[in-house]
């Protein structure tokens, strides 16, 4: 690993100032993506700004119909949180299915979203539940946040501080894990709320996206049967050793049906 200057931020302002001061500074959250990438020599930041001690990025709060999760909350924290289990079990299931226990004990929701891996799980939660990404300087709606492969709306030095999830009436998440990596070969989050139906798909393309054809069918009837015969085009989907684009397209409808069935089994 190339050398870097290590800085520990005690506040959001300090973190942003340190990130802006460095030539090529990067935030360090759980390090579960950044450290492997640095070890491979694919990233060589001048400064690493540790977020571990930033109090404003910790904690999970439930207020009315809103769950606010600090960006430094580990996947294991989200998976085990009692109120999330009760109000939004689809999110507990999603967080508890990321990687393995050791990675879940370090990896954070903020790091996962900033990274926006095309096969990551959290992007499906944020887009499929219509969450809001809160940063040091603004609030970004899910529909504006994810912009392409490993690309988000974040500006240089912009820090995700919290993520706010509105509690839907119903939601379900199903992933078809890659047999070796556990990342999503395809993952589908389907939800229904007063704002409407959302279906977000991860793993299938270059970036998480909403499956509008499925959303329209589910808006008429939020049941698995409503998706019978509704196909998703394979044109822009990923083909690799694990599955062809048409295989992934087929999986999207299959998993969306299961996600809706799961959503109907449990409240939200």
């Amino acid at each position: 690993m190339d050398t870097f200057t290590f800085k520990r931020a005690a506040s959001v302002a300090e973190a942003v100032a340190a990130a802006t001061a460095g030539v090529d500074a990067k935030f360090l959250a759980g390090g579960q993506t950044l450290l492997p990438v640095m070890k491979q020599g694919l990233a060589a930041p001048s400064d690493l700004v540790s977020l571990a001690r930033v109090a404003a990025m910790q904690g999970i709060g439930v207020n009315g119909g809103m769950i606010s999760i600090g960006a430094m909350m580990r996947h294991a924290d989200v998976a085990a949180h009692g109120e999330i289990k009760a109000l939004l079990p689809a999110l507990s299931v999603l967080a508890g299915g990321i990687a393995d226990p050791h990675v879940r004990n370090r990896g954070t929701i903020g790091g996962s979203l900033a990274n926006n891996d095309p096969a990551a799980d959290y992007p499906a939660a944020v887009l499929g539940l219509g969450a809001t990404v809160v940063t040091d300087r603004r609030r970004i709606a899910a529909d504006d946040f994810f912009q392409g492969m490993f690309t988000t709306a974040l500006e240089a030095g912009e820090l995700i501080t919290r993520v706010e999830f509105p509690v839907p009436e119903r939601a379900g998440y199903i992933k078809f894990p890659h047999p070796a990596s556990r990342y999503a070969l395809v993952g589908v989050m389907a939800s229904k709320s007063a704002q409407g139906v959302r279906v977000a798909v991860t793993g299938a393309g270059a970036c998480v996206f909403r499956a509008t054809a499925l959303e329209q069918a589910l808006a008429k009837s939020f049941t698995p049967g409503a998706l019978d015969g509704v196909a998703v085009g394979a044109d822009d989907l990923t083909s690799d050793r694990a599955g062809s684009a048409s295989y992934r397209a087929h999986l999207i409808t299959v998993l969306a049906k299961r996600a809706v069935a799961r959503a109907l089994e449990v409240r939200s």
Partner: protein
Amino acid sequence: MTELSMTVNGVVRRAAAAPTVLLSTFLRESLKLTGTHVGCDTSQCGACTVIVDGRSIKSCTMLAVEADGAAITTIEGVAKSDGTLHPVQEAFRAHHALQCGFCTPGMVMASVALLAHTPNPTDAQVRHGLEGNMCRCTGYQNIVDAVLAASQSMKGA
């Protein structure tokens, strides 16, 4: 170089480390605790699993500076000081849950952490809980059996 201090297996240990030093390297090379193995060094295999502040983590994927001030348990810290094996170690021995032994320190640490929060796991929960640990010899069946047996022998212990 920064002077780091952590409580490792109950003893306060201090050593200087550059920011790039991984916790696995710090444990093995600065503290000479070579029981923690480095298998892949790419965050996949779990051979380097240790417990930091009560949570199992892959020590090849954590900077030593990030563990400054933490309480750490490594494989050297699970048996009693008189040499009595931890119930998980004893169950691994009794159930032939190791062959070459390379993955074993990580498997044991992962199992200890798993049983701490899930004292009565099902077969499926053990398999899910050990997803971050790879074994190239045993085929896992005896490891799962050992963890299930350890959960029984730890009852009332």
